[in-house]
């Protein structure tokens, strides 16, 4: 199972890539896309929307199920991945790269410490 070491993770099988400017990119992990199967729709929030840590900020729908996306950290949406509107299958094909879901501005740096690193997440993503 592919779990890039340079990313942060959550127990909800999402990843965060911390950028230098106080922003981060969020997506779902390889494990998550694999369990969901064919993704047919991603509901994205609007730029400027604010979410508390733990709040649902969108939905990933596969043929089999609808699955909420949870904001790992207090954040404001910078942009959603508009490519997913026409090609949600990018989340299946490239969960850690082209299939990214939102870019956020981190509102509370102190919460970063609560995220999982790749080693810890690998324990959770074991079947």
């Amino acid at each position, binding site marked *: 199972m592919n779990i890039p070491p340079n990313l942060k993770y959550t127990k909800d099988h999402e990843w965060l890539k911390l950028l230098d400017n106080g922003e981060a990119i969020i997506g779902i992990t390889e494990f998550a896309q694999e369990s969901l*199967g*064919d993704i*047919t*729709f991603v*509901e994205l929030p609007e730029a400027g929307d604010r979410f508390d840590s733990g709040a649902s900020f969108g939905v990933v*729908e596969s*043929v*089999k199920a*609808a699955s909420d996306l949870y904001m790992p950290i207090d954040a404001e949406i910078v942009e959603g991945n508009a490519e997913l509107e026409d090609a949600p299958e990018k989340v299946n094909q490239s969960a850690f790269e082209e299939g990214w879901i939102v870019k956020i501005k981190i509102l509370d740096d102190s919460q970063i410490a609560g995220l999982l690193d790749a080693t810890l997440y690998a324990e959770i993503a074991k079947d």
Partner: protein
Amino acid sequence: MSELRRTPLHNFNATRGGRMVDFAGWEMPVQFASIVEEHRSTRSAAGLFDVSHMGEASVSGPDATAFLDYVLTNDISTMKSGRVLYSLMCYEHGGVVDDLLVYKKADDDYLICLNASNTEKDVAWLKSKLSGFDAKLVDVSDDFALLALQGPKALEILSGLTSVDLGSLNYYWFTEGGVAGKPCIISRTGYTGEQGVELFVAPRDAAELAEAIVGVGEPLGMVLAGLGSRDSLRLEAGYSLYGHEIEEDISPVQANLMWTVKFKKAADFIGKAALLEEKAVGPKRKIIFFKAGSRRIIRSGAPVLENSEPVGKVVSGTFSPVLNEAIGSALIDATSLKAELSVDMRGKSMRLFQSRPPFIELNP
């Protein structure tokens, strides 16, 4: 929790990457690689489905035909030997016990194929209706594995494995013959809207038969397909599924299945009076099919709204890979048939665009 039952192809499925789920008490592959890819491959080449969980019962004896005409809505008396017929089995009140296929082997010898989730109930129901008929009903589900080979290349693949003349085997006919050396009932039927066959085979022969089909089929683009694509294929084709479009409390009048109900057949049948009455008065509810206008799947159970008031519920919902759009069916009040219908998707209203099934051109 009782143990899940396994089909004779369990090892075949598991070793080839089938992702197993609980379906009606059976451990079945929902997918192998991808539901959408399996769907597309079945429409473009072929898919091989293990549907051994389906039930079978034999109905035999001098009154076999009369018995089936009494318990089923379609006309059994006019069937020829070698013919397959789709029929409903109804309760007195007109609701549906099950939908099934009838295989006529001889005037006194039939095989019926039942939904897995209903087999036990069906067999008990049928046995309870036997009195007065010189007929015998035996649950023979354990005698058969069932493989469905479906798609535009299905017959070409099969022709490489059998000497049976498939060209003269018409849609909804069956014959008995060897496939890859294994004795089979070869039925020109299916649940996808594509050309194809369903093969009844002894459990001990099932895995070798499946391997042989894979050997010939894979070079022609055939894939192994699971229950996930079986469902999206049948919904795209506009076929009803028990527990969704038909149910104990959804009658054939409501489900647009009156073509399977033969009021004019000679025999009286269970449910006839109720169905005649409902047809005369007009059904209170109807099954409709819809396109969602987007890729977002509207799932079974979602309330259907007219001017924000509930007038029904979604009974099936999936993604159509051919249309690149979500599709589904719903049970709605007959008074709302012409209304603008919508569903609430987490606070967002989505319109349902009524569409006559099938959603695609069928080529069975």
